Each structure stands twice: as C-alpha cells, then as structure tokens.
C-alpha cells in the first residue's frame, strides 16, 4: 500500500491514530491529570474534522472493497461535525462523571471506534466491508449504553441493545448471503448489474434491509429504541439518535440507489407501508411520553419515517432531499439533546414536568429548545421546514400524493407534542422552577453551533445546491 492510498483513507487513518494516541494517553498520563485528556481528545477531533474538509479524490482501494468520492466525503464530514458538537456538549458530563471513575478515555475510544466503523460502512464497495463496518459501528455503542454501571436501567439497556443488534445483524448477514446466492458476487458494482427481481433476491433484500432498519429504528424494527435511549446516558442516546441513524441512512441511500435499484418496484411498495407505519407509531407513542429521553426516542422514530419519503422517490431530487434533511436533523436534534443534557448535568432532571417555568429562569436555553423543536416540527424559518418541504416535493413529484398527505398530517400531529414541551417551558408556571445556571464554555459552543446550523442551513441556499449537485454521483 503506497502512501497515496493512505491519503485516500485519511478519515480512517487519522481517526485510528487518534484512537491509538488516546490509548497511549490512558497508559502514560498520571491519574490526577486525566482530565486534560478530555481537552486533548476534543481538540484533536476538532483538527480531524477540519482536515476532513480538504478536497478529496474519487478512488477505490483493495480491489474495489473501499471506495471514496465527493459524496462519501461529504457524508463523513457531516458525521464528523455531528460528533464534534456532541463531544462539546458532553465534555462536562465526561469530566464530572467519567474521569473520576477512570472511564473517560474508554468513552472516547469506544465512540471513535464506532465512528470508524461508520466510515468503513459508508465507504464500503462490497458487502464484506459493509458488514465489518456495521458490526464495528454497533458493538462499541452497546458498551457505551451500559456505561452508567451503577444504574440497573443502563445495564438492562446495554443487554437489550446488544441482543437486538445481534439479532439484526444475524438476519442481515443471512440476507446478504442470499443476495450473494442470487447474484454470485458481493461487490456492489457487479451485483448492481446481475441483480434481478427474483424471489430469492427479494427475500435476501428484505432480510438485509431489516439490519439497517434496526439502526434507523424503522417500524417494526424499532422496539429497542425507547428502552435503550431511556437507559443510556444522554450523550449516548444522542449519538444513537443522531450519528448512528445518520450513518445508516447514508449507506442505505447508497445501496438502495445503486445495488438494489433493479428491485425498485418491490422496495417502493415496502417503503410506502413502512414509512406510514413508522411515522404514525412514532407520533402516537410520542404523545404519551413524559420522560424526555423516551419522548425524543419516539420523535426520532417519527422523523425516520419522513426520511423514507425521499428514498421512495428514487430520484436525484429524493437523494439530495434526504442528505439535506439528515444534515438538518443532526443539527436540530443535537440542539434539543444539548439542552436536555445541559439541564440533566446540572440538576439530574429528565422529566417533562420538571421543565415547567424554565423560560423564566433560563431564557437562552429555552429559546434554543424552541428553535430545535420548531426545526424538528418543520416550522419556517427554521431549517427543518425546508428539509421536510424538499422531502414532500421529492415524493410528490413521483406521484405519491397520498403518502405526502399522510406525512403532512403526521407533521401536524408532531407539532402538537413538540408544543407540549414548549408549553411546559414557556407557559406553565412552577413554584420551584429549575434555578438559573451558567453553562461551561464547551456546552455553550456546542449549543451555539447547532443554532447557527439550524438557521444557516435553511437560509443559505448554496448548501442545498451543493448537495443537489453532488447527489448526481449516485446515478
């Protein structure tokens, strides 16, 4: 392997180096100075994120197993930005809770390993690489979910996560072998040509799809979501709902539009049903939730249903609207999770009723929450509106009017439960509201980035235009 191929894999290589550095740091840095590792890790990851934006070439490596192009780079950069914001928001939590328990470095290493797995998954040129990436991205998260070792719920969530993941990836692997049987290859390029709409390949496809459906929490593969989010520490729940879901959507988009394109008649029908089911289930369950983490779990399920609208369209417009939507979703959800985390860090409160009267004492955080929820609910001028609008039009342009109508109705329902949170914060009164608190610099930076993202992505149109131009690489 020459040096130039290292450059092609620079995302992976840099992250690997970062992980190794952290392992070395864990060994050599004395115990009382461990907290400096947090600053170091965030700083290095910031550099890594910045380097990712350097221009990239279109290349393949390892005989086609690994490939990269502008679009794949964009995906990785989006994930990087998400993780960076997540780390900024979690810095306090890591310093306060983990460093003392000597688990701080472990957290970073596990998180970065999972991200590394996502890189490989997105860059995969064949199903072997894809599967390795999938596993590498899932297993560390299961460990992260169980990080609150003292809490029974956290351990339970960890076990549920790993069992569900094992089931999903087993089924997925079975599906991949059936696809291999049907096409005689595991390389995406070859499969795309030899794939035909036979019973075998459809069965293989459905089984394979279940694996990614699990990661994106599509109904009926979503059951783990709420339990795991509730048990997991907030940064991990945030990672699951934002980064992990985003990565899975990206690879699903690539595979559906290339390898699985010959089966488009089959999967359009399937996605139609799954989209309606997912949106509706997510929304109906979200209505009843009082725990913020469970609430956000169901909200993220409902949001996943919307993503399918773009997928169903199967056009370039669909692809660009999905990428755009995921980008916005990452920022919006991180804004909401960030506020939930800021409150939880200071007070340990996660119940919706605890938020009553929050606006009186902490107006800034309340306004960020308002912006994030408005973006999730799709109210202009927050970016979420544009994301949803493009998804509607992508689906409508292919004639899925009924689906668009149901989606709009679902958005209207979702507006209601997002307003419940805002009602608690802005309208309800409380004799003992959460007192005013000041956030650390990291947290403020993490929240500020999300606010800028939510406003800028909607308003600054070259972002969408770039995504639209780049999504032609799929065809």
């Amino acid at each position: 392997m020459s040096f130039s191929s290292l450059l092609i894999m620079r995302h992976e290589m840099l992250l690997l180096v970062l992980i190794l550095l952290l392992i070395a740091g864990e060994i050599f840095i004395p115990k009382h100075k461990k907290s400096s590792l947090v600053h170091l890790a965030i700083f290095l990851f910031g550099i890594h994120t910045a380097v990712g934006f350097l221009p990239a070439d279109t290349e393949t490596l390892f005989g086609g197993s690994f490939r990269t192009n502008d679009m794949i780079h964009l995906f990785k950069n989006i994930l990087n930005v998400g993780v960076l914001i997540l780390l900024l928001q979690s810095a306090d939590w890591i310093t306060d809770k983990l460093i003392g328990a000597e688990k701080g470095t472990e957290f970073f290493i596990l998180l970065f390993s999972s991200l590394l797995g996502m890189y490989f998954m997105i860059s995969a040129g064949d199903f072997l690489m894809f599967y390795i990436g999938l596993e590498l991205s899932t297993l560390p998260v299961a460990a992260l979910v169980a990080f609150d070792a003292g809490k029974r719920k956290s351990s339970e969530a960890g076990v549920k996560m790993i069992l569900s993941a094992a089931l999903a990836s087993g089924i997925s692997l079975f599906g991949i072998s059936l696809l291999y049987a049907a096409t005689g290859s595991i390389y995406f390029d070859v499969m795309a040509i030899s794939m035909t709409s036979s019973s075998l390949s459809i069965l293989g496809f459905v089984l394979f799809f279940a694996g990614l459906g699990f990661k994106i929490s599509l109904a009926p593969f979503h059951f783990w979501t709420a339990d795991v989010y509730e048990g997991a520490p907030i940064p991990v729940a945030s990672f699951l709902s934002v980064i992990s879901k985003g990565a899975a959507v990206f690879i699903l988009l690539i595979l559906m539009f290339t390898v699985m394109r010959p089966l488009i008649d089959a999967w359009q029908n399937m996605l139609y049903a799954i989209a309606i089911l997912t949106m509706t289930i997510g929304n109906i369950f979200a209505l009843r939730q009082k725990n913020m983490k469970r609430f956000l779990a169901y909200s993220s399920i409902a949001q996943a249903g919307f993503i399918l609208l773009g997928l169903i369209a199967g056009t370039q417009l669909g692809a660009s609207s999905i990428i755009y939507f995921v980008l916005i979703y990452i920022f919006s959800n991180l804004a909401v999770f960030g506020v939930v985390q800021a409150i939880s860090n200071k007070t340990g409160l996660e119940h919706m009723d605890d938020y009553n009267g929050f606006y009186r004492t902490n107006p800034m955080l309340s306004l960020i929450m308002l912006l994030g929820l408005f973006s999730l609910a799709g109210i202009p001028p927050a970016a979420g509106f544009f994301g949803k609008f493009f998804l509607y039009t992508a689906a409508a342009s292919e004639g899925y009017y009924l689906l668009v109508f149901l989606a709009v109705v679902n958005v209207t329902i979702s507006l209601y439960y997002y307003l419940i949170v805002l009602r608690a914060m802005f309208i309800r009164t409380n004799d003992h509201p959460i007192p005013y608190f000041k956030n650390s610099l990291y947290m403020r930076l993490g929240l500020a980035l999300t606010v800028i993202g939510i406003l800028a992505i909607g308003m600054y149109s070259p972002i969408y235009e770039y995504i639209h131009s780049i999504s032609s690489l799929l065809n």
Partner: protein
Amino acid sequence: MNFSYTILIPLIPFVVFLILGLNHKRIKPAVSGYIGVFGLMASAFLSYFTAYKYFFTVPKIDGIYQQITHKTVWMNFTDTLHIDMGVLIDPISIMMLIVVTTISLLVHIYSRGYMKGDPGYTKFFAFLGLFTFSMLGLVLATNLFQIYIFWELVGVSSFLLIGYYYTKPSAIIAAKKAFIVTRFADLFFLIGIITIGFYTGTFDFETLNDPTGEVITNWASTSFMGLSVLTWALILIFIGGAGKSAMFPLHIWLPDAMEGPTPVSALIHAATMVVAGVYLVARLFPMYYFIEDGFALNIVAYVGGFSSLFAAIIAITQKDIKRVLAFSTMSQIGYMMMALGVSGYDGHEGVGYMASMFHLFTHSMFKALLFLGAGSVIHAVHSNMMGDMGNLKKYMPITNITFLIAAFAIAGVPPFAGFWSKDEILVAAFEYSKPLYAVGLIVAGLTAFYMFRLYFSIFHGKKTAYKHTPHEAPASMTFPLLFLAVMSVVAGFIPFSNFVTANKEPFEAHLNYPLAAIAVATGLIGIILAYVFYKNPTEYPAKCRKAFGSFYKWAYAKFYMDELYFFVTRKIIFNCVSQPIAWFDKNVIDAFMEGIGSGTLKASEKTKKMQSGYFQDYAMAFVGGVVVISIVLIYIFKN
C-alpha cells in the same frame, strides 16, 4: 425604474424587533416606545414615497400599470423550479404597504399610552415589530413560496401577540386555538403550493398570473376527479386564505383571539393579518378568474357571502364589545371575498375586484378606529361588557365623536368612506347574481343596526354609576383616533379605480344612484331601529329577544359552531379516525392525555402492551415483521 429600496420597508421593523428583543431588559420602556414609533415612521414614509413614485412618475405602458419586481434566485430546486426572494411592486402591494404601515404606526403610537406600566412593555413593542415585518414581507412576496414563509411568520408572531397576557389562561387557550386552526388551514395551503409548483413548474406570480401565459391557457391539460388540477390547487390555497381571514367554517378562532391586548386586535384582527386571505386571492386573481371559467372563484364568492351574513347575525346578539367587532370584521371580510368572487377581469367588469380592494382599504381605517375606540373605552371602564357601560359621551367626548364617525362609515352613510366602497361592492354583486346582491343588502342593514346598537349602548343609554369616574384617554391614544377619523371620511374620495384594478388598467367608476339609494336607505333603517331600541333604555330589545326565541339563543351562542367542532372532534373523529384532527380542541386532547376518551385509550393501552420491555417480544416483532414483508413482497411480485 428602481424600487429595490422597498426591501427596507419590512427590514426596518425587523431591525426594531432585533434591537428591542435582544435588549429588552436593558432598554427603558419610554425609549423602546420611541424606537418602535420612529422605525415605523420611517417605513410608513418610504411606503408613501413608493406610492407617489409608482403611481405618478412611472409611465404606464398601453395605459396599464407595470408590475415591477426585483428578485434573486434563492434556492435552486430542480433545473426549472426555483425559489426566489425579492419584492414585487404593483398597485395592490403598494396599497397594502400603505395600509399596514399606517395602521401599524398608529397602533404603535396608541400602545405607548395603552400599555403604559405593563411589565412587558418593551417585549410588546418587539413583538409588534416582528409582526409588522412578517406582514410587510408577505405583502411584497414575489412568489408563492415566499408568501408562505411570511404567512407562517405572521402566524407565529400573532400567536405571540394574542398570547401576550400569558398569565391569563383564556389568552393562552385563545392563542393556541388561533394558531392551531390557522395552521390546519395552512396545511391545505402548503399542499396547494406544492401542487402548483409541480404542475406549472413555477412559483412566480408574474408567470402564473399572465392571462396569455402557458399556465392559464393550459389549465385543462391535467385533471383530477373531474376538475382541473389547478382548480384543486386554487381551492386548497383559498382554504389557507379562509383560515387566516376567518371565513366560515374556519372562523372559530377570531372571537377568542380578542383576548389579546386591544391595540393588537386593531392591528391584527382589523387591518392586516385577517385581510391576508383576501390579499392572497387578489394576488392570484387572474388564475382564479381564468382557470376553469372561474370555478374556484365561485366558491370564493359564496363562502364570502355566507360568512358575511352569518357573522352579521351573530354580531347583533353579542354583549362583549370586542366580540361584536370581531364578528363585524368577519362579516366585512366576507364582503370583500364576495366582491372578489363576483368580479370580472377587463375594464368595468372588474369593478368587484376594485371594490374589494377599496373596501379593504377603507375598512382597515374605520375598523382600526372602532377597535382603538373600544380600547380606550375598555381602558376607562375596565370591562369589555356592554352592560357595564352607558352614557359615556359625557366623559369621553373625543372617543365618542370618533367612534360615531367610524360607525357611520361602516354603516355606509354618505359621505363617509364605507359608503363608497360598499356601493361598488353592491354594484358588482348586482351585476353578477341577484341572491348575492340580496345577501349584501341584508348584511348592510344588519351592519348598520348592530353597529349603532353598540354605539348607543356605550355612549348613550342608561346612566351607569361608575366606581371610578371614566376619563378621556391620554393624547397618545386620542391622536390615532382623530387621525383615523379623518381617514374614515376622506378615504372614500380616493378615485380608487384609477389606481387599483384587476387588469391594472384604470377605468372610470360611477356611482350607481338607484343602488346607492337603496343601500343608504337600508342602512338608515338599521340606524333608526337601533336608535329607537337603544338610545334610551326601552323594552323593545327584550321583546325582540322573546319574539325570536330560540333563534336568538342560537345566534347568541354563535350557532354552536364551537360546540359543533367539539362534537365532531370528540365524538366522531376521535372515535373513528382518532388523532389527526382532534387537536381542534384542547379538551379533546386533554381527554386523550388523561385517558377520559374511550376508544383511543383502549387502543393505546393495547399498543402500550406491544412495548412490554421484554426483549423476547421485540425479537418476535422483528422477525415477524421480516417474515410478513418478505411474504407479501414475494407474493406481489411473483404473481
């Protein structure tokens, strides 16, 4: 001709909003009032300047006013469809600029007196700025998408203003109701926009409205359920407009929205936001008129006519003065919608369009005056109920006179403004359909009656003993009243048909003397009846109530529309379709949340069992899902 500076007209209020909103703890209340007023003065000045420049210095081409746009491509959607941002200058947008900035300026001035001492004084002015910005952005929009964005912003900022007294539960409920009902209507609006975008490939008003353009000439190319797709789209868009303009049956939010501060009612519910629907239809008028021979326009006419009659009947029975005014607004907007609906396009046939815009203009003046006058009465008496008032002419001379002028104007008594615009509407309706003309005439009589019932009960009538002696409002509040009173007289003499017409070509409008005489006579009968009934306390009202019996009760209860919604949402939709529309009413949702509702609760209990917490169950669902999907897909594609 360069009009790109008009972008400043909405931007100035926005800057005011930013300054006041970001520093609301630091800025002294007195200063914030001045910032708001001066900002609006600048906007208003620019609007007047624009009107002068456009109407008197821009040369007409073939006798037609030009449409001037300045825009940039904001977002490329597909290769052909793109979204622009910009400003559109034509007669109706200029007219709306003048209406919005004038009324908003006066409301700013008035609020300095009315809101004095309110703890959220600065915040209130910030909200006013935000609202004005959104409304002006809506007016200047060059395309459907842009108008939609500002449309939603108007909704959000009016939500903030209606719910301003956030410690008052009824204000919160009202704000929520207004927001939910109008958003429900907006849902249809959005679907209409998407439909238009995809069938015509453009959102741009200029392209859409060109009578000889592709969009209008090819309307028949695609149809859906017996109507052209574009007709459907226009109907959907009208539903959006009907939501904001409180047309039947989407009017239920308007009376409740009176919970907001009274200056807000004058701004939002008299002059600006509620006429947005009328403006929207007028904006797309060539489409409404030409596509499918005006099928959608017919709907506009009948919905408008019905709403106007419906609201006028209710207005007679109400006891809260702001609610009387709310229903009166709904009735007058119905009038404007009806006028648009009966209008033709070319020359004098377009008199309905002209009349509608004319009435929009005059109505905004005298209705804002009525609201502000009511505000100063409420300010003095500390009550909204007519029963608590009486004989106020002694204590509040300026309010008395200005209110009387506005009442004459709305009743259509010459030479006040309402007479001129109303007369044109009746002419247009007469030429189009006799039943609609009859409706218009009846409404004119009812309007005169309920308005003078209001006037006599407040300023004349019984000698009420007041706890605190009422006193005239401060100068900051009486100045806007006097200004609007002058406008309510002179606005009628503007030769509107020289400026605002359907095809942008001026024509000569003449007074139709027989029709005018009939209308004035009807109005006078209404006034005289009100005089006999209410000038001094009499027994007639009670006798009338008895004579009408249950009909009176029905009307007083607003024909049970709220209850009807309640019934439909709770009993029918809630049980059958469950959630989607259930949010019309807080109680329905509360019932759901607390588990009072029966069917849905059972369903949700069942689904709750699905989420048992046992991994085995999850795995079963997972595998089951895979199996079912596989079987179904393979079955479909192998047969």
